[in-house]
């Protein structure tokens, strides 16, 4: 949940091209982007890396880090480094999916709400109000417990937690853009409301949503891991980061079991806040 109270105006045009935008980004944002690219690269290629399979018992149990097993072995003699890297295949796509669904559902409802107003707006916004009245983790826990533990259900729970943020964000943007001259002109010109929304309003509303989505990405990884940690998310033997930490928590004399997945989560969350900050500064500066 990034700070949504900071209004971010939309850029009027796409300008400068990728390279110039890139050069304007602060160095931290570039580091963040590089870390995220590394993890995406890992997700795509990890199965070809020359290392042990994450589910294979390759060594003695509970061995500390060594040249052979960089992050040691876990209680089943599996390579913790390999499991940490493969963990990305679970955590990253799920987070992308959750953010994408939350953005899609939230933005759609928010746009409808803001553009049409009236009772549609009332209903949608009351729904938003009630949903955000719950502390996110408690709502996610209750939903995940209701649907039954599992990664799919945990993802559904997280979408339920996150969509209202995007609904509010998009509604605020749409309300602002709606009052601009070219939109009023289009409406006066007799264009259908849906067309006005699609062609004249929405393209100007995406920037804050994208910045928020970048920053939320890390938070989703964090909450997914938290749910797995308390046993409501991924199931073993899948090398999900949260459940690996939970395994490590019961054997914390063998600290290396939890070390890798914890560092992995840390890098992802740090990277997204670096990148998100950079993007926000960039667009803030432009809009001024």
């Amino acid at each position, binding site marked *: *949940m990034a*700070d949504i*109270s900071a209004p971010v105006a939309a850029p009027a045009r796409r300008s400068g091209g990728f390279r110039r935008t890139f050069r304007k980004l602060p160095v931290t944002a570039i580091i963040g982007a590089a870390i995220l690219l590394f993890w995406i690269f890992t997700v795509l290629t990890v199965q070809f890396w020359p290392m042990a399979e994450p589910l294979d018992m390759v060594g003695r149990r509970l061995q500390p880090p060594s040249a052979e097993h960089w992050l040691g072995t876990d209680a089943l003699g599996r390579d913790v480094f390999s499991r940490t890297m493969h963990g990305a295949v679970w955590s990253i796509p799920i987070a992308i999916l959750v953010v994408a669904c939350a953005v899609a559902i939230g933005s759609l409802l928010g746009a409808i709400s803001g553009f049409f107003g009236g009772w549609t707006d009332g209903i949608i916004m*009351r729904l938003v*109000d*009630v*949903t955000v*009245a*719950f*502390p*996110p*983790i*408690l*709502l996610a*826990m*209750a*939903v*995940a*417990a*209701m*649907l*039954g533990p599992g990664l799919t259900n945990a993802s559904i729970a997280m979408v339920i937690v996150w969509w209202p943020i995007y609904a509010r964000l998009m509604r*605020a943007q749409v*309300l602002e853009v709606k009052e601009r001259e070219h939109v009023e002109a289009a409406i006066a010109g007799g264009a259908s409301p849906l067309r006005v929304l699609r062609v004249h309003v929405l393209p100007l509303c995406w920037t804050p949503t994208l910045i928020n989505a970048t920053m939320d990405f*890390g938070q989703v990884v*964090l*909450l997914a*891991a*938290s749910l797995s*940690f*308390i*046993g*409501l998310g991924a199931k073993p033997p899948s090398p999900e980061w*949260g459940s690996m*930490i*939970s395994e*490590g*928590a019961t054997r*914390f*004399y063998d*600290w290396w079991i*939890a*070390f890798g*997945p*914890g560092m992995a*989560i*840390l890098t992802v*969350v*740090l990277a997204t*806040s670096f990148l998100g900050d950079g993007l926000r500064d960039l667009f803030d500066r432009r809009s001024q």
Partner: protein
Amino acid sequence: MLAYILRRLISIPFLLLGVASVSFLLSQMTKGDPLAALVPERMMSNPEIVAAVKAEWGLDQPLPIRYVRYLGNLLQGDMGTSFSTRRPVALDIAERLPATLELVIAAMIIGTFMGLALGLLSARFRGTIVDSVARIFALLGSSLPVFWSGLILLYVLSVQLRIVPGTGRLPPRVQPPPDVTGFYTIDALLAGNFPLFLQVLSHLALPAFVLGWAVTGIITRLVRSSLVEGLSLDYARTARAKGAPERIVLIRHALPNAMIPLLTILGFTFAYLITGAVLTEAIFSWPGIGSYAVRAAASLDYPAIGGVTIVGAVAFLLANLVTDIAYAWANPRIKVH
């Protein structure tokens, strides 16, 4: 502004109704059969016992009736009976709430002070290595999963170095102070037992730090940016021109400027604190609401899940209300949609 606050206040009961309804639905439309939590397995095949248990727990009534009953009971402060502790959920929660509040408040204090200190440091030495270190330390707090940082710190500080005691609110051998407020720190002082107070503090320190660290990031960022903004304002320039050292300018002139936004963001940090508290309590065996919630979710103790979500939502609503009012008070020209 008054109208805005009034509107917010009026909306509260409706939100609470919504919250209660969602909690009810969540606790009723479950995949699991609550009977599985109530009837011993060997008795499941005995229809008489199943019927008796259903009647005892009101599970034989249709959903709308249960809903009305649930709301009626809630108004009287009755959240039902926990399936697993067999005690009223309200009692369970009341017993555990002080532990959580003590942890959250301690974390809030630690987080605020660390945030202020780091914000001051990084504003004073902005652009230097001190600035970077302070900001990275603050950012780490909000990026680390508390259930991992808690674990690592517990391992290093408690198991390896033995600087801090282990988990829990007090060593099991020690009798807690006589119960007045439920806050062990306050109760120990009220009882005039200073050594016990120190012991309570030493147990509180690590979990409160771990949790407080999680909100340090937001606070540091806010304090730093308001200070930097304040330093560029006219009165700061004037003070500097009069020869006041940077340190004085920062504390006398820029810091007050940072306090109002800080006030408004404290409610916002509450969301982080609740999330963090659930996980911190799990790591530190803290007998509060968070560990109760985790246990309830794991054992499909629906009355308990419902109770915890309602209490959490009420706390969250109140925190947000206070924030909004503070925000409205600080920015009287706030646009109200």
